[in-house]
């Protein structure tokens, strides 16, 4: 695995260098090294020499598509995984970019490692980590543990079926064989079997931890409303106070607003400092949209998102 990563990394750098030296783009957004193990950070490269800072490994978890809003005035080269590319396609359906404004450097994704789960699997602080084959070796002050990489993937990555980015300008590495690690969404199927009472209690418990930092909103490429409903003072939809009902309100609407737009990248859940389960909301909506309207986000660049269109014979058995 790490050899493949190394090869990809070299080619990303090469491509970025080429784009920057030919001035085809103003900047390249990619992943760079970070001070803590098991993590990388988004970096913004403007010079050909800077391309040496780009890296690729199993910790490139961020969805870089969020930065396209910030750099909308520039010609941007961007390193994308499957989910990032899907977000970008969904965004371009909503006409967020000018054509040819983007140069997508696609990388077929090896699925990213859930640093929190790794952290919980060992006692003590992880000081160093690296990949070796399909294993991750984590070291701390007084331990050195080898873990199987595939056991510690993000839940959203385990069910991912579109790891090879689509609509890219250049694809680095060969397309991967698409299949989920676990069939469909076992967690959601399991959850659906519970009684409404239990389900509500779970939802209540999860959302009650929310501290209203709105990181889930800010990391989501699809959350770009000029004024979010929570910030609106007139009408005032929710109060920011003590009631869990308000927190539930926020989480319902945040997730529901992604109906047919969520690429399932799981950035919201990764961002949450209180570790609230958020993908079980968006994944359910994705499943529903697939079942009801036969739609998957970001697969086709010419199909409108399901809630902005309709079919005459949509299902309506629930309507009296």
């Amino acid at each position, binding site marked *: 695995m790490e050899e493949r990563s190394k090869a990809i990394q070299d080619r990303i750098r090469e491509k970025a260098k080429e784009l920057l030296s030919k001035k085809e783009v103003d900047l390249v957004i990619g992943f*760079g090294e*970070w*001070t*803590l193990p098991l*993590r*990388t*950070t*988004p*970096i*913004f*490269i*403007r*010079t050909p*020499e*800077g391309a040496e*800072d780009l890296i690729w490994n199993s910790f490139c978890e*961020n969805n870089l598509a*969020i*930065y396209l809003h*910030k750099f909308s005035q520039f010609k941007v080269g961007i390193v994308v995984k499957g989910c990032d590319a899907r977000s970008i396609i969904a965004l371009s359906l909503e006409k967020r970019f000018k054509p040819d404004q983007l140069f997508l450097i696609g990388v077929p994704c090896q699925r990213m490692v859930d640093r*929190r789960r790794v*952290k*919980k699997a060992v006692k*003590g*602080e992880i*000081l160093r980590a690296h990949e070796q084959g399909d294993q991750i070796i984590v070291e701390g*002050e007084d331990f050195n543990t080898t873990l199987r990489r595939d056991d510690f993937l993000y839940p959203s990555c385990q069910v991912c079926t579109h790891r090879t980015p689509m609509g890219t300008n250049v694809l680095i590495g060969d397309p991967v064989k698409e299949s989920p690690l676990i069939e469909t969404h076992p967690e959601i199927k399991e959850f659906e079997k519970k009684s409404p009472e239990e389900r509500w209690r779970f939802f209540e418990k999860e959302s009650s*931890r929310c*501290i*209203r*930092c*709105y*990181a889930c*909103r*800010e*990391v989501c490429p699809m959350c770009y409303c000029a004024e979010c409903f929570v*910030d609106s003072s007139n009408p005032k939809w929710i*109060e*920011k*106070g*003590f009631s869990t009902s308000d927190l539930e309100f926020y989480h319902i609407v945040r997730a529901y607003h992604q109906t047919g737009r969520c690429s399932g990248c799981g*950035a919201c859940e*990764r*961002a949450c*400092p*209180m*570790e609230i389960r958020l993908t079980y909301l968006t994944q359910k909506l994705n499943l529903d949209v697939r079942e009801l309207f036969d739609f998957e986000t970001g697969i086709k660049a010419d199909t409108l998102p399901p809630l902005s269109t309709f079919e005459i014979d949509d299902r309506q058995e629930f309507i009296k």
Partner: protein
Amino acid sequence: MKLRLDKKDFKNFLQNLIDEYDLYAPVQLTEGVSVFKKIDQPGEVNLTQLHTQKPAKDVFFPQSEVMFRYEKVGKQNQMISMEEGKRERILFGARPCDIEAISIIEKVFVGEEYTDVYFLEKRKKTTIIGLGCNHPLSTCFCSSAGGDPFLRAGSDLFFIDLGEAYFVELLTEKGMAFHKNKFFKEADPKDLTFVKELEEKAFEKVGFSIPVDGIEKRLDLMGESSFWDRVHEKCIGCRICTYLCPTCHCFDMVDEGEHQRGQRVRHWDSCLSPLYSLETSGHNPRPTCRERTRQRLMHKFNYFPKNFNQVACVGCGRCILYCPVHFDIRKAIIWTSPKRPKRYERGMI
């Protein structure tokens, strides 16, 4: 006064506190997430995490706090002021950095001209029991920011985990009130040497590598530096770093409820939110992420020292740990230093 508390007595000790005080201590909400909460059962206290997610400021300056309630009776407004619980409070298990941060917030809230009664009342009523950090994290840089993993300042009592017992120091008058606590025993001379050992190990680990000293002067010259064009790039404007910061103290005041009755509440607010400085006219003095990030860093390292002779950062490292895009405040601090590595110039923040 140096004492010890055996771990087998720990539960009873806590129960004893609960009986007499409102006890606030770290509670685990789910694996890997803990906050300070009011304790009902000794078993709830969970000290596995070095830092709780929400810092101890939450106990004195809660995320949401009712300032007063109102009710309309006819044309008259009836205001109902909030009364704090009568019981004295104990904050247990706060780390030195969190405790230092409380004194930083106190500098703002308890001023000569105006005093924040909501904060002060809670502060006065609280006895703080600090807890030393035997194993600081690699993100901790408290020593560089003027503290240390075993800083006693601010604590009334100070606990150090010795394995099968806690080493207990009574530091202030409030703390000395505990000297007759039936669970405390005389400390062993061996304990003292062990504490010394733990301290040295922790000091060594935290180190002094982050150039916080003199940052105020350096930033004076950097008001319009190109540094700000780089440093904000990856910030997405969420509020994690400010809400989880033990020293951040900005708040918002809003009215909740209807015409007939409701309450005025204050919430934590964050300078990284565009709404924070947006005027009703539509003019925003800090229109982009660049100005907002600058405000956050400048407030901590330049404006605050100007007003209070101390940086508003205690080096707890929460903002580094929880940032979704992995912004490292240490790198920003290093950047301001003339001794920064060359590659920082390329924008590796």
